[in-house]
């Protein structure tokens, strides 16, 4: 199992290093709760480990010859009072690829980005809300419900 993880990590790093020269299609950022949908990704078992997580999702341009690359970076932990940071920040980084699909649970024509992460048995789905905003879907393609502090909407980073 450890060997598999090492293999995927190396492939992921090589993949990212190959595509980093190309200009991203878009970088989406945002902060979400540490909901059940992402806990397995981050290996979180204890509720008290993670109050919220900051996301940075880099989508590289669609390419006809190779899978379109993705880089996903999480910074997470317990919020530090009166700041936007964490008491003890932890982070995780994933590589993968993305494809464009159609349809959410309620909107069959909606544009959906499917992000496949290497090394973990997980696809993430995002519905395109506008050119500048996307929102995470659950596995049934419903919009993920946030809490009173954070949501699952991500905005295009300002250059």
């Amino acid at each position, binding site marked *: 199992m450890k060997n598999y993880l090492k293999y995927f990590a190396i492939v992921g790093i090589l993949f990212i290093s190959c595509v980093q020269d190309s200009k991203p299609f878009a970088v989406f*950022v*945002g*902060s979400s*709760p540490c*909901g*059940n*949908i992402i806990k397995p990704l981050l290996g979180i078992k204890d509720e008290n480990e993670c109050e919220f997580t*900051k996301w*940075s999702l880099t989508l590289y341009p669609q390419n006809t010859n190779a899978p379109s690359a993705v880089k996903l970076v999480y910074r997470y932990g317990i919020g530090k009072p009166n700041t*936007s940071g964490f008491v003890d920040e932890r982070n995780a980084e994933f590589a993968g690829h993305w494809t464009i699909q159609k349809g*959410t*649970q*309620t*909107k069959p024509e909606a544009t959906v980005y499917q992000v496949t992460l290497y090394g973990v048995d997980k696809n993430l789905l995002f519905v395109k*809300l*506008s050119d*500048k*905003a996307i*929102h995470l879907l*659950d*596995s*049934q393609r*419903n*919009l*993920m*419900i*946030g*809490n*009173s*502090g*954070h*949501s*699952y*909407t*991500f*905005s*295009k*980073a*300002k250059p």
Partner: protein
Amino acid sequence: MRNIALIFITLMVFCEVRAQENGAENAPYVTTSSKPIPAGKNVYGIFEGRCACQELAQVLKKEVSPDCFKTKWGLVLYQNPDTQATTNYVLEGSFYRQAIRKGTWTISQGSQTDAEAVVFELQADNQQTIFLLKGDDNVLFFLDQNKNILTGNELFNYTLNRVEKKPAE
């Protein structure tokens, strides 16, 4: 023996249900508000969220300090319990701390980019109408006056999420 089997099956089912409650992939969170929140057939939904500040202030024509970076919102949408027609709403939030915003709400169709989109319009006397895009039953997005989705930042966006009342203790 049969009774033991029945008890065992009942326990297994109970444990499974509890596991789903606690580990659901996607379900409304319980509100963090300490205030009593309304419930009943006349409540369409209760939505809460923290949103970015400057863009929303501009849309709602509110003056805020340049340091303002987040706003806090709690929205209760009421309906006719028999017909489910929209009725009143109560909006508590950063721009309405002195006077809670109250009014009526209606449903219209069409945003700037989607002619089929469902939009909630929150009216109030002498104030800007607030437009909220219905993402689905559980998630709403603030729109600008041209019915475009607002763009957030690394910390906050312009989304309201359905929340549930705390279970009775």
